[in-house]
């Protein structure tokens, strides 16, 4: 885990986890919209495409304002669809910002994730441009202002012999070609967004595309209700020879107008470029976050690898591929692409013979650490609380005060199942695994694979002989201390009620997972 160096970054994490905890309390982890902000944007993109196609049927480039005014006057087929289109755009922008904030606060914006961050910034720009062209399409006073301000910025670039602002002076009526080009951009930009979105998720295995279905329909229903109850206004037609004091605006897309009105066109453009550059530079600004060096990528011990492909299947970033090799051990061997590996360590928990993982965090390293822990803590039927370092691990002291023996790991998804067994054999009364919520895992799929390894026989599975009654997985985040302590208390009560004692330590856990020939060689 990379250290969070600056107070600002720590503040961001605190704000995020606090908001997450509140939303978890209200909606539960499964339907927490903050966890699904990225997928909500995708869902809203689809809503925008569908409503946009409908609105396009009624739009006329020769009479833009008149056609939209006519559409808005129609309560059944136009007004609410236009409202839904606008509110979905606004919510998409908000969700995009929330998603970016989450990635920044969680330090998921650099290294191998740089491409995702940069492409995300481009997507944000395209969303803004798309909204901009959409409002210009309407050609009410707000659209006119957006167009005039955009032209003022464009004129700062010495690339045109005549300023584009002249188009909006009122000398001549705006040509239909302008609205046609604007419409073309409004349709073309979302197509471009599709390509950039592909880049955005390119380095993810199994990217989640849509939010959970109830959340998806709830969001659409809420937006539709808002569109019906509060129809979006239709301002007067843009007139370059009038200066309205106020325009019916959308602050999400027009918040910058009061600032830019006070600046020269070039200054506004420069400000936008500086802010954009800062955003794009986040991966380089925040890289290494005080850790000195980037976390080491996973490596494969080819002497141990049995070519089972499990690490390749589990890697959330598609960083592990299986290559053929000429060896008696196995026809395949795992190979980690250091450019794609984010050092999440999920592969450590997926490897039955414990031959893969970041240095110091492989299954074998975990067993060594667990043995040291057992000998130091001298477990006597206490609960061992295995806590995710970014989640429950932040209040390990509180867990200890509550009677548990905290065992902090970098990610619960890294945890090798043999460590759980070893802890129980080493004298733990039970193992309470405090993992991050599934949609909030900093390593994407940790809780998912952890659950499957413990309860559904996924490699490297927890052996059947291990008493599941002495294991519990609870998902809490860094701000859910009370929930974690409550879960600990109830688990402790359950363990106390168990009559069967903990099994004796009669087998070498460190090698039992390995194939027979490996044990012989050892």
């Amino acid at each position, binding site marked *: 885990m990379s250290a969070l160096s600056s107070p600002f970054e720590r503040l961001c994490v605190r704000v995020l986890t606090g908001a997450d905890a509140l939303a978890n309390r209200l909606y539960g982890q499964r339907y927490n919209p903050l966890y699904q902000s990225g997928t909500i944007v995708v869902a809203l993109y689809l809503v925008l495409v569908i409503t946009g196609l409908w609105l396009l049927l009624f739009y006329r480039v020769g009479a833009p304002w008149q056609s939209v005014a006519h559409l*808005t006057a129609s309560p059944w087929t136009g007004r609410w669809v236009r409202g839904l289109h*606008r*509110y979905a755009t606004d919510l998409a922008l908000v969700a995009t910002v929330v998603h970016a904030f989450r990635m920044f606060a969680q330090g998921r914006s650099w290294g191998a994730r740089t491409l995702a961050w940069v492409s995300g910034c481009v997507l944000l720009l395209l969303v803004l441009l798309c909204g901009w062209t959409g409002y210009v399409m309407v050609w009410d006073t707000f659209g006119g202002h957006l167009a005039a301000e955009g032209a003022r910025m464009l004129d700062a670039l010495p690339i045109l*012999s005549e300023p584009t602002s002249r188009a909006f002076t009122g*000398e001549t009526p705006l040509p239909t070609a302008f609205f046609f080009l604007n419409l073309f951009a409004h349709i073309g930009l979302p197509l471009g967004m599709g390509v950039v979105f592909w880049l955005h998720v390119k380095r993810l295995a199994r990217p989640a595309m849509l939010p959970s279905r109830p959340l998806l329909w709830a969001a659409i229903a809420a937006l539709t209700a808002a569109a019906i109850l509060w129809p979006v206004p239709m301002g007067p*037609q843009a007139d370059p020879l009038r200066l309205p004091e106020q*325009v019916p605006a*959308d602050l999400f897309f027009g918040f910058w107008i009061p600032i830019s009105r006070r600046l020269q066109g070039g200054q506004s453009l420069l400000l936008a470029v500086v802010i954009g550059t800062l955003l794009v530079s986040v991966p380089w600004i925040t890289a290494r976050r005080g850790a000195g060096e980037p976390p080491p990528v996973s490596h494969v011990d080819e002497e141990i690898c049995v070519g089972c492909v499990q690490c390749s299947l589990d890697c959330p970033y598609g960083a592990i591929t299986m290559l053929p090799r000429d060896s008696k051990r196995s026809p395949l061997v795992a190979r980690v692409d250091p450019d794609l590996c984010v050092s999440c360590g999920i592969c450590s928990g997926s490897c039955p013979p414990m031959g893969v993982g970041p240095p110091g965090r492989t299954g074998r390293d975990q067993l060594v650490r667990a043995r040291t822990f057992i000998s130091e803590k001298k477990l006597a039927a206490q609960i061992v609380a295995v806590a995710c370092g970014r989640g429950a691990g932040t209040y390990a002291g509180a867990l200890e005060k509550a009677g548990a023996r905290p065992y902090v790991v970098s990610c619960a998804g890294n945890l090798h199942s043999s460590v759980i067994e070893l802890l129980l054999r080493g004298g733990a009364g039970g193992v309470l695994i405090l993992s991050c919520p599934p949609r909030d895992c900093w390593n994407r799929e940790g809780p998912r694979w952890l659950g499957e390894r413990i309860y559904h026989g996924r490699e490297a599975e927890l052996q059947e002989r291990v008493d599941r009654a002495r294991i519990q997985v609870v998902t809490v985040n860094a701000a859910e201390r009370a929930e974690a302590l409550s879960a600990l208390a109830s688990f402790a009560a359950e363990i106390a009620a168990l009559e069967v004692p903990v099994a004796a330590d009669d087998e070498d856990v460190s090698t039992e997972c390995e194939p027979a020939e490996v044990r012989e060689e050892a």
Partner: protein
Amino acid sequence: MSAGRRAAAVAAALLPMAALVWASTAPLTVQPRARSLVRLAWSARPERIENCRPRTEAELAQLPQHMRQPMVCEGQTAEYELTVRRNGQVVLQQRVHGGGLRRDRRLYVLQEIDVEPGSSAIDLSFDRVGGPSSATEAPASRGSDHAPPHLAFAERFDIAPGEVVLITYSPQEGALVARRPAPAAHGR
């Protein structure tokens, strides 16, 4: 989920939704109160001032046969001085030249002058700087879209708050003309 928690969840969803609707439809103040403008906007081709003289026989003899043009012309595009007076006070004075690096492309004027709403006497002149200094120097070309050597405009306006008075060049009339806003169309 308890009824209380459900109510809190609904309220927590409604609150940001209401904020979203408000921010999506809130009026935005884009102009200071009672601002009015006189906007000058036009474009025209600047005159080209050429100085032509006939070549001497000796000069022609030195040239290859296919290059023996009897007249040789050197010239430049004209520059203009724009002066705007409001109620007798000079509020803008600017040298206007053609676009492009050689300043031989179309010239444009785009200026906005803040004025107090009310009565304003606007006096504007747009004069070529220099010009033919001798009998041999003369405008080489003057089409309908060329700026004339001298333009003048003088008119008193009663400008309403938020109104823009556009003063532009009409090639058809060969003069500067004013345009005022049409009655506004309002949406439903």
